[in-house]
C-alpha cells in the first residue's frame, strides 16, 4: 500500500468488518502514521460514548398503559388468518348469479360506450363546420370539401361510381354565322 491515510477504513476496522488483507494494510499504516492513530482513538472514544447514552425508563405503568391503548386500537381490526371472524361463503347459485351480473354489466358498458363514441364523432363533425350545422341542416357546396361531399352525398345520388362530374352543354354557333344578341 502506498502512503495514504486510511481514515475511510477506520470505522470498518473498529467494527471488525474489514477483510484480513485490508486489516493488515491498515495496521501497517498505523505503525507509522500518528494522525491516523489519533483518528482511531477519537473514533473509539465516540463509539464508547454512544453506547453510554441511555434512555430514561418511563416505568412499567407506562408500558402497561401502552399495551392497553394498542389493544383498544386494534380490537376492531381483523388479523389475516383470524378464524373467529365470519367468512363469506360463495355457493354455486351465488356464483352463477354473480357471473350473470358481470355479463350484464359488461353488455351495458359496451352499449353505453358505443353510443358515447357515436355522439362524440357527431360533435366533432359539427365543430369542424363551425358548430352551427346540425344533422339535417342544408349545407352549400362551398362549405364542404370534395372528400366530405363523398362522405355525405345529397339524397338520391348514387356515389358508388365516384364523384359525379358536371356536364356542361356547349352552345351551338348560329347557323348563319350571325349572332342575334
Amino acid at each position, binding site marked *: 500500500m502506498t502512503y495514504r491515510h486510511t481514515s*475511510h477504513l477506520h*470505522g*470498518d476496522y473498529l*467494527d471488525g*468488518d474489514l477483510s484480513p488483507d485490508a486489516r493488515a494494510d491498515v495496521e501497517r499504516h498505523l505503525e507509522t502514521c500518528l494522525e491516523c492513530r*489519533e*483518528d482511531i*482513538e*477519537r*473514533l473509539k*472514544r*465516540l*463509539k464508547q*460514548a*454512544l*453506547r*453510554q*447514552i*441511555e*434512555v*430514561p425508563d*418511563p416505568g412499567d405503568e407506562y*408500558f402497561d398503559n*401502552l*399495551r392497553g*391503548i*394498542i*389493544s383498544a*386500537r*386494534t380490537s376492531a*381490526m381483523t*388479523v*389475516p*388468518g*383470524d*378464524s*373467529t*371472524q365470519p367468512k363469506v361463503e360463495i355457493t354455486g347459485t351465488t356464483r352463477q348469479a354473480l357471473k350473470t351480473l358481470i355479463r350484464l354489466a359488461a353488455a351495458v358498458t359496451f352499449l353505453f360506450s358505443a353510443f358515447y363514441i357515436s355522439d362524440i364523432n357527431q360533435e366533432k363533425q359539427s365543430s369542424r363546420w363551425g358548430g352551427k350545422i346540425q344533422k339535417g341542416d342544408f349545407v352549400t357546396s362551398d362549405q364542404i370539401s370534395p372528400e366530405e361531399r363523398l362522405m355525405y352525398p345529397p339524397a338520391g345520388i348514387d356515389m358508388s361510381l365516384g364523384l359525379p362530374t358536371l356536364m356542361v352543354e356547349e352552345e351551338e354557333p348560329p347557323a348563319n354565322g350571325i349572332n342575334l344578341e
Partner: protein
Amino acid sequence: MTDEITRLVLLFQKGDRQAFTKLVKVFQKKVYALAFRILLNHIDADEVAQETFVRIFNRIGQLKSPEHFDSFVYRIATNYAIDLLRKRKGRIVAMPSESDLPGPVQMTLASRVTNPEKVLENKQLLAAITKAAEELPPRQRATLILHDIEGLSKEEVARIMGCPEATVRSNLHIARSKLKKKLGKLLSS
C-alpha cells in the same frame, strides 16, 4: 428466544390475538428506546411506539419470514420515527442544558468513572454528542443509532433501512466524521 418469537409470529398470523399481545410485551421497550434515541423526547417516542404496533397488526400478513420479525419491527419503527423527525424539523426542541442531562441522556458511568472531574467531562461529552447527533440528517442519525447504539450489524441495518449495505457503510462513515468534527477536542482528551 428467537424460536419463541417465531412461534408467536406464526400463531399471530393464524389469528391468535394473545400471541400479538405477547409480542408487544417483548418488543415495546426496544421500540420505545429506539424511537426516543431518534426523536429525543417522550411524546414522540410514545407516538412511534403506538403507531408501530398498530401497523404491525395491520401488516403482519406481509411478513414472509417470521424469523425476521425483529427487523420487521425495527423497520416500521425507524421509518415512522424518520417521518416524524422530518415533520418536526421546523420546530427544533431546545437542547437540554448540562444540568438537565438526566432527562434524555442518562449515564451509566458512575460504576466505571470514580473521579468527579472525569464524571463531569463525560457528562459534557454525552451532552455534546446528543446535540451533535440531533443535527444529523434523519437517515444518517437512524443508521448511527441502529448500528453504534443498538449494536445491529450493517446487514441488519440495511434490511431495516431498505437500502444496500454500501449505503449503510457510507451513511455511517459520514455521520461519524461529522460527530468527530463537531466534538473535536472533547474526543481527544
